[in-house]
């Protein structure tokens, strides 16, 4: 589904990604871990199409297409979804209002009929249950005054509504208490499907107890320095990232 080959990218003229290689197949859940500043979030934003992140070399093939040539909205319509680490607050726009417009843009692209207000409301009712979110929140201005947990639930809600093929979760666990973490992870797990891939970016192993990945990759200094199965997370938990840093330094 997704092939990242030798991806290099700069942010404000500083090279952050220094040759990422990653293959993600349909139905798989991958976790990307790594210390702060290793390039995890940059990778997520490059995949989502952030404009001021400059790709200097490499390629990303998504479902046989050149992903890097697409606009952010084209990627979304093709089924890529990024759950933000810091969801943006937009006063004056409710979740319901913008999400209906977004869903219909996506459905139009996919050759599906647009949903009318009633159909959309029914869908929202179903999906808000999934993330145990208060109906009142979705009619309030987007993320304005939301708690950390409410913002993350709203991200997973949007993901559930937009029905992506490839979901990128950028530090969705940050700032969550255990209850919120359980709900958010439950929402993500409900979306696991054999034709959908999920990439979970996290700093901590904790989330991976709830969302159990098929593969784990450790990012350090802009490269994948170690890949493995879920047991790798436990090693990282007990030894910390310093273990990898010294190991990587020895290899280089």
């Amino acid at each position, binding site marked *: 589904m997704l092939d990242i080959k030798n991806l290099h990218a700069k942010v404000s003229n500083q090279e952050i990604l220094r040759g990422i290689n990653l293959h993600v197949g349909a139905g798989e859940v991958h976790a990307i871990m790594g210390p702060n500043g290793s390039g995890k979030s940059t990778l997520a934003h490059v995949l989502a199409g952030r404009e001021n992140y400059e790709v200097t070399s490499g390629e990303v093939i998504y479902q046989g297409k050149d992903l890097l040539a697409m606009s*952010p*909205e084209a990627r*979304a319509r093709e089924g*890529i*979804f990024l759950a933000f680490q810091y969801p943006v607050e937009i006063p*004056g*726009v409710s979740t319901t209002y913008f*999400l209906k417009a977004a869903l219909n843009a*996506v459905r139009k692209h996919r050759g599906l009929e647009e949903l009318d207000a009633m159909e959309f409301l029914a869908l929202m009712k179903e999906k808000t249950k999934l993330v145990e979110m208060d109906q009142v929140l979705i009619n309030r201005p987007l993320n304005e005054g939301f708690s950390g947990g409410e913002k993350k639930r709203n991200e997973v809600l949007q993901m559930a509504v937009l029905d992506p093929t490839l979901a990128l979760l950028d530090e969705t666990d940050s700032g969550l208490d255990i209850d919120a973490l359980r709900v958010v992870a439950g929402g993500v797990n409900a979306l696991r499907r054999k034709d959908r891939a999920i990439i979970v970016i996290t700093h901590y192993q904790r989330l991976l107890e709830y969302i159990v990945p098929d593969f784990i990759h450790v990012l350090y200094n802009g490269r994948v320095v170690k890949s493995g199965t879920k047991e790798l997370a436990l090693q990282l938990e007990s030894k910390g990232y310093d273990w990898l840093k010294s190991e990587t330094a020895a290899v280089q």
Partner: protein
Amino acid sequence: MLATESKEQYLTAFNQSRSTRSASGPSWLEELREAGIASFEALGFPSHKNEAWKFTSVEPISSQSFVHANGAARSLDANEILSRSFVDAESCRLVFINGVYAPEFSRTQDLPAGVRVQSLAKMVRQNDDFLSAHLGRYARYQHEAFAALNTAFVEDGAVIVVPERCRLTQPVYLVFASVAGERQVMSHPRILILLGAASEAKIVESYIGLNSGTYFCNALTELMGGRDALIEHYRLQQEGDAGLHVGTLEAELERGCQLTAHGVTLSGSLVRNNVHVVLDGEGAACVLNGLYLGDKRQHIDNYTEIEHAKPRASSLELYKGILDGSSHGVFNGKIIVHKDAQKSDARQTNKNLLLSANAAVNTKPQLEIYADDVKCSHGSTIGQLDADALFYLRTRGLGLEEARSILSFAFASDVVARIKIDSLRQRLDDYLVARFRKP
């Protein structure tokens, strides 16, 4: 044309029609007009040297000549006028075409006893005593050139009187439609609103241009709010692409009176809005709520002045501008707290969104505080659409244009939400959605 020549034109026009005017009208009115023209002669058109006109050139007005339109233009469609001006078909309304009352488009049924909603020209003919007592009393025509000009040429307009303790629940609409013809027309509509103690009223002035020709509309509203009166006043402007508009609201509020004055400017070539509110009684309160949308080469200037003249009065002001194309916006917000106005509470906010690199805005707060126990704050911002918010919306599948339109709409939403007349707010909402969605 030089400004002096232009000024002469108005003086000549005034003198030429003097004999016909004085033959037909009451003497007090002719005296008021004479005072108006004398003041205009002394003041002339304002220049950049005038602090209140620093960012706006009146040359488009002063360099052209305009004539008074003779009567209402025929073959106008009532439905078009009403829908363009955001007015419901069943509403209570007075409609004016080029400043002249058009009874065929107006409707004043079902008003509570004692409420008067009438054409000024008609009331002048009836020679009401109270008209002479109030007309010209609140306007600062001795100091403001356009108020002076309006006063000199006062002919028609609207008079609204709501008696004490009367609650006028349905909004009253005043529609001023300009139709430019072969000659460039001007109108000087005059509106007098008198609200008795503890009365309530919602009044909407809606200005529209029905074609793309050049015209000049110089409207002046005098509003007197009695003790504890509750007033919502709206000025909605949708002048034509070449329309020139100067609109002035002069409001005086007595003790405990609460005025919410909305100013919404959606089009017009040159638009200047003057709002002057005197909080002339203890505990009087005003909320000024403004939205201005610029595009193409439009110039929109909002000048507001709030005077806290008595203690414990409050003012809350929020003006927001969205400027696209090569448009130019101005916000000049003056707050004066007089010596005796202790415990005044004044808050002013102006926010501007620039949608294009060629759009510009000047924003200038001015506080003059002569009392020592007051709360005053002001803040202004000029910015562009938030890049993070744009990216966020695009990652959900919304196209760049749609994301921009949603964010522009969102920027205006708090001002729109303060509009309390449901049908008006809905029409404005629909208008904004369509306007921001344009390619």
